[in-house]
């Protein structure tokens, strides 16, 4: 922990602080101010991009927990986000629950469902885990949700949520700005919660399992219990992501939660940096931002090459695939590592180390 000269702590509690210098605290206060006043001076389009970024952060948080902090590989996270979203939607539409209650129910069910598919982790690792989580994705979304759940109430595969159906204590969450505030609050809570969780015994157990699960077992950790706990926590975070995503949609359908979204989230983690919470945020901002910039870059180019704008979806996917590959080849520890390096450089300048 880098502390400039003149800064010292007088109590043990102070040494545990997240932001230990006035400078860091000031930075964070400015960031919070910026984030909360963004809708005042940014246009609606920027707010909607911010919404997508926040949704990606929440989704990637669950994946980071499993892959980066617990060492369990998961490609099927989109399925748990889907469970959260669908349970919340059904709660609001069919069971008449208020939105916060339905959201909590969605998170719990997503967590439990995730535990079910985390059970094989007691026996298998690595590649096989990829297979089981992919199977979880297919069975949950492509089978159960597509064929059974989405026919509930005769809604024929899409649940309609016209703006105004979702209200928190009488205040309707319908426009982009209201969704933005909801998402920001929940994201901050989740990030803070997870950061603190990782400093507790549970977090340390997860990191031990990630580093060497056999050694962790020999030290007396109940590895199976902690692995399932990790799956539960990831499922709950996925449920939060799903619950936050629905108010900005006009209808929910299984197509939002396909395998490619789960793979996308893993890609976000890798670009941001595995095993770091900063990485989640940086990765999400990078991926969402790059894709929006790509849209702007393509518009003038499509004068010369009209296929670019017609088939823009493919350009987006190709760019994302290429970004993952290039990051893995040239920056394998991700943007968070690069951020650390830059901070170190600035802190230590003009010295090299």
């Amino acid at each position, binding site marked *: 922990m880098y502390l400039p000269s003149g800064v010292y702590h007088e109590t043990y509690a102070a040494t545990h602080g997240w932001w230990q210098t006035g400078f860091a605290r000031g930075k964070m206060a400015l960031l919070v101010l910026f984030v909360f006043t963004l809708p005042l001076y940014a246009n609606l389009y920027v707010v909607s991009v911010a919404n997508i970024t926040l949704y990606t952060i929440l989704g990637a948080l669950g994946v980071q927990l499993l*892959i980066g902090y617990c060492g369990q*590989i998961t490609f099927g996270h989109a399925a748990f986000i889907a469970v959260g979203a669908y349970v919340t939607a059904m709660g609001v539409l069919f069971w008449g629950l208020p939105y916060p209650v339905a959201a909590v129910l969605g998170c719990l069910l997503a967590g439990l469902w995730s535990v079910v598919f985390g059970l*094989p982790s*007691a*026996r*298998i*690792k*690595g*590649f*096989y885990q*990829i*297979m*089981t989580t*992919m*199977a979880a994705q*297919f*069975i949950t979304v*492509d*089978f159960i949700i*597509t*064929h*059974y759940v989405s*026919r509930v109430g005769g809604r024929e595969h899409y649940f309609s949520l016209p703006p105004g159906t979702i209200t928190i204590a009488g205040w309707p969450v319908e426009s982009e700005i209201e969704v933005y505030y909801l998402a920001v609050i929940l994201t901050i809570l989740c990030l803070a919660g997870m950061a603190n969780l990782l400093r507790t015994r549970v977090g340390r157990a997860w990191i031990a399992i990630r580093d060497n*699960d*056999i050694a962790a*077992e020999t030290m007396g950790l109940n*590895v*199976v219990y902690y692995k399932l706990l990790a799956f539960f926590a990831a499922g709950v975070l996925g449920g939060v992501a799903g619950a936050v995503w629905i108010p900005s949609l006009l209808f929910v359908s299984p197509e939002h939660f396909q395998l*490619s979204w789960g*793979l996308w989230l*893993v*890609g976000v983690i*890798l670009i941001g940096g*595995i095993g770091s919470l900063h990485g989640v945020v940086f990765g999400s901002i990078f991926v969402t931002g790059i894709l929006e910039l790509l849209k702007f870059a393509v518009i003038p180019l499509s004068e010369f090459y009209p*296929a670019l704008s017609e*088939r823009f*979806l*493919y*350009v*987006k*996917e*190709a760019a*994302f*695939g*290429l*970004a*993952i*590959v290039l990051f*893995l*080849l040239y920056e*394998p520890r991700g943007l968070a590592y690069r951020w650390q390096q830059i901070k170190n450089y600035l802190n230590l300048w003009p010295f090299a180390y």
Partner: protein
Amino acid sequence: MAILLELVLSGIMVGSIYALVALGWTLIYKCSGVLNLAMGELTLIGAYVCLTYYQWGFPFPLALVATLLTGFILGLATERLFLRRMIGEPILAVIMITVGLSFFFRALVGFTWGTDTVVFTPPVFPREPLRFYGMVFGQVYLWSFVAAIVLLVVFVWFFQQSRWGLSMQATADDEMAALSLGVSAKRVYALAWAIAFMAAGVGGTLLGNINGLNISVGYLGLLVLPAVVLGGLNSVPGAIVGGLVIGVLQNLSDAYVGKLTQGGVKEIAPFAFMVIILLFRPYGLWGWVKIERV
């Protein structure tokens, strides 16, 4: 009863194509330890490349040979550009490179050729079905089966009898020892990828002949994974048997289990089956058994 036999036999015929693609996957894994999740997209590329040659007027056997050559070159290029640097990196990074490649290839194919179904015109195989003891088979299935079996035999012979094949086996068995004997690991990896591209390309072409080609052929690549899990990750006969079993399983599950559910069983049956296999026999039928219980 005749229907059951027809289902099983046509499942075997399509399964032979899956077996071909699974063989390519297993080769890559055996020789270099790379778990390739881009297999479906390799199939897609090979199929569209063959279609392009065919549309340019090459007769079909020549188009097939041209596809093999193109696949060979693409395999070498992919390995050199993307995977050479990843030797020794953690397993997740390598898998994610192949995932990134799969996004990239699929987008490239979609961009260049669109999502419409295209057929080989004029049709390569005659359209008249063959009748055989009351069962009906399209000729295209039979010819695809024959082609897949021939290629399988060729690849297995290459792997077991030729010098390059033996080098690949040596690298797969113990890389250090092979290196010390003068085998070039780089060439082996490149060759593994080249063979995978070729196998996938031919598999895609044969699939495309059956009813037409569109971008959904890429999802077939995911089906290869249950096949190799069933057969054992590093076993060549396991991959072949796995492919055949998955082909039959798809047909049977769609026809029989599909009656009980509201549909959609065909796509997920192989995966559900795979989960069950993983719970009871995770190393598949022929895979190397590594006991690691925690």
